[in-house]
């Protein structure tokens, strides 16, 4: 029933029907005035050593998925299963052993490092919290610095003395300190210059090979996501609308939103004629009051009466290829337009 059934082997991470709703509180009496449906029933699985890309536009809930999955936010409902254990109800104490194995890299290397701690203190803080490596912390930190491409002398420098790319390396070293199995990388390169972006992307891929890491790679840049991921999930207004391996997603998108997203990405190549594009009308609706039926119907070029009334389920249209769109039932042929051309 979910887009999670693999080929029998137990996945490292499995998320089932995860929901995260935020109440909107107003006025002096803190009356609830509505709900933000940030994540509204998301399911996927991630195998060991795999990267699942999570792509979508601002406000689609992709970052909230990452944070809820690590229980930095309490899920409203749904299950988070790590190696067969459901951790969604775990309290702080029972989360501790999982926190060592599940780490996070943040988008903004300026906001995610404490300016009053030296780079070395930042990277060794996980050792302090988890009370490990007491005698050899300095050496471990030095080794981590070297691994992420920072000179160990820089341990004594403070975050403001580093460039954006170097700060991101510090964030990566901190995430790797406890040798996690799983890392949520939330837009780790979007604040960086293009030439620095490539360095960090390469580093993340090298580390994955070396430490057999699994990533949930959250980003809005489809080219970056396709480059790093094995499989890609596309989110729109709190829901996954399509999930498949990256080549299939690019060659044969099954959801009109994926098609539009692919076609909107500018390609750094010269072509004499402008590309045939699917240009969506309007803006992403608010997750406070999402449209009824299929959330995408207000912008979809192919929407019909059923889309406005009935929510399409995420179902396996082709083996390993999940999409939530009524058009597949109606027998419409996909892809609708060639995304690359």
């Amino acid at each position, binding site marked *: 029933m979910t887009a999670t059934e693999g080929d029998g082997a137990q996945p490292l991470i499995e998320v089932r029907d995860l929901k995260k709703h935020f109440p909107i509180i107003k006025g002096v009496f803190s009356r609830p005035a509505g709900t933000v449906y940030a994540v509204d029933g998301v399911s996927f699985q991630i195998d060991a050593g795999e990267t699942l890309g999570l792509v979508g536009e601002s406000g689609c809930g992709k970052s909230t998925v990452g944070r809820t999955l690590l229980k930095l936010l309490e899920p409203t409902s749904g299950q988070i299963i790590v190696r067969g254990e459901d951790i969604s109800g775990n309290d702080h104490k029972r989360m501790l052993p999982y926190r060592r194995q599940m780490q996070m890299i943040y988008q903004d290397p300026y906001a995610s490092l404490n300016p009053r701690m030296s780079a070395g203190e930042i990277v060794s803080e996980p050792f302090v919290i988890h009370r490990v490596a007491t005698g050899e912390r300095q050496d471990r930190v030095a080794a981590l610095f070297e691994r992420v491409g920072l000179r160990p002398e820089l341990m004594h420098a403070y975050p403001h003395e580093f460039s954006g790319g170097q700060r991101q390396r510090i964030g990566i070293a901190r995430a790797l300190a406890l040798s996690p199995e799983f890392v949520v990388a939330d837009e780790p390169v979007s604040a960086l210059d293009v030439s620095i*972006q490539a360095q960090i992307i390469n580093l993340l891929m090298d580390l994955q090979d070396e430490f057999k890491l699994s990533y949930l790679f959250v980003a809005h840049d489809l*080219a970056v996501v396709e480059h790093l991921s094995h499989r890609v999930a596309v989110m729109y207004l709190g829901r996954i609308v399509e999930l498949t391996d990256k080549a299939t997603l690019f060659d044969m998108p099954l959801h009109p939103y994926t098609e539009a997203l692919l076609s909107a*990405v*500018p390609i750094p*190549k010269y072509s004499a004629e402008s590309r045939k594009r699917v240009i969506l009308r309007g803006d992403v609706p608010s997750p406070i009051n999402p449209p009824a039926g299929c959330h995408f119907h207000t912008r979809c070029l192919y929407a019909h009466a059923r889309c406005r009334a009935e929510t399409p389920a995420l179902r396996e249209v082709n083996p390993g290829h999940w999409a939530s769109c009524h058009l597949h039932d109606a027998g419409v042929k996909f892809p609708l337009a060639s995304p690359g051309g």
Partner: protein
Amino acid sequence: MSQEVLPGETAEEPRTAAATAVLEIDDLRTHFFTRAGVIRAVDGVSCAVRAGETLGVVGESGCGKSVTALSVLRLVADPPGRIVGGKIRFGGANLLDLSESEMEAIRGNDISMIFQEPMTSLNPLLTVGRQIREAITVHQGLSARAAMDQAVEMLRRVSIPEPERRVHAYPHQLSGGMRQRVMIAMALSCNPKVLIADEPTTALDVTIQAQILELMRELQETFGTAIILITHDMGVVAENADRVVVMYAGRKVEEAGARTLFEGPGHPYTRGLLDSIPKLDVAAHEDAHRIRLNEIKGMVPSLHNLPDGCTFAPRCEFATDQCRAAYPPLLQHRPDHLIACWHADKLLTKPA
């Protein structure tokens, strides 16, 4: 076949182009005088844009692309910034010689600018209609009511739904894409000859970016506006610019027609940049052992501590002693292709 560009001569641009250029920037130098020393944010940049043409200016943060744009409109904060040299030719005059009031008559009228973050460039206390109207009343002397009608018309032209209602909206009531449309409406309200767009879509989602770029193209076709499109996004440039200027550390390192540049980039920096971007079509078809991206090692040098010789040399894989000793001249290595690199001829014969 390299041709030396003599100082003082505009052989950089083909003469025909210079003759028909709407706006011509010639050897612009904008420096910032700080306690840490002089920062040469723009150090001898020349380029020109013709009517109906889009000139793309690309480069990473700190390369001087935005300061170039601000210099054209003389909006660089002084102190600490000052335009210390060069000319900006527009309508037969050098903008740098004009008085402040003459300049005010040009800003927002003949030359307009749109900025990256519409929320910080719109006044949050005034309705968008009031803000669009301001430019129209100042420059065209229309009555308040006629200006308001024109504001509604401009909002309609940039495809804002229900313009009669939105004209009374405050910026915070609009989405990012709508605010950028308002900025464009404001910038185009006086039919400018030149539109300078500084990262106009960087803060927007891709589907909204596609809408805005499409809108800019349509408006350009209708009004023949010359557009200077400043961006860090090579994809946006490839799909929208006719000519491209690549900047690095305050200087122009390469200029060519879009096709020439993307099919045969000559400067190692341009080549490195293009190779370091993940390409959607390639990325989708790599096998499980994904291809490593090309890295440009190191980082952009700090502008108050530039290396001797070519500023890109410390990061360049082709750098030789010659590069570390002297900055290379900007030469025409192929027809309509300027490159500032000692090894450009050699590199052009090498496949990218």
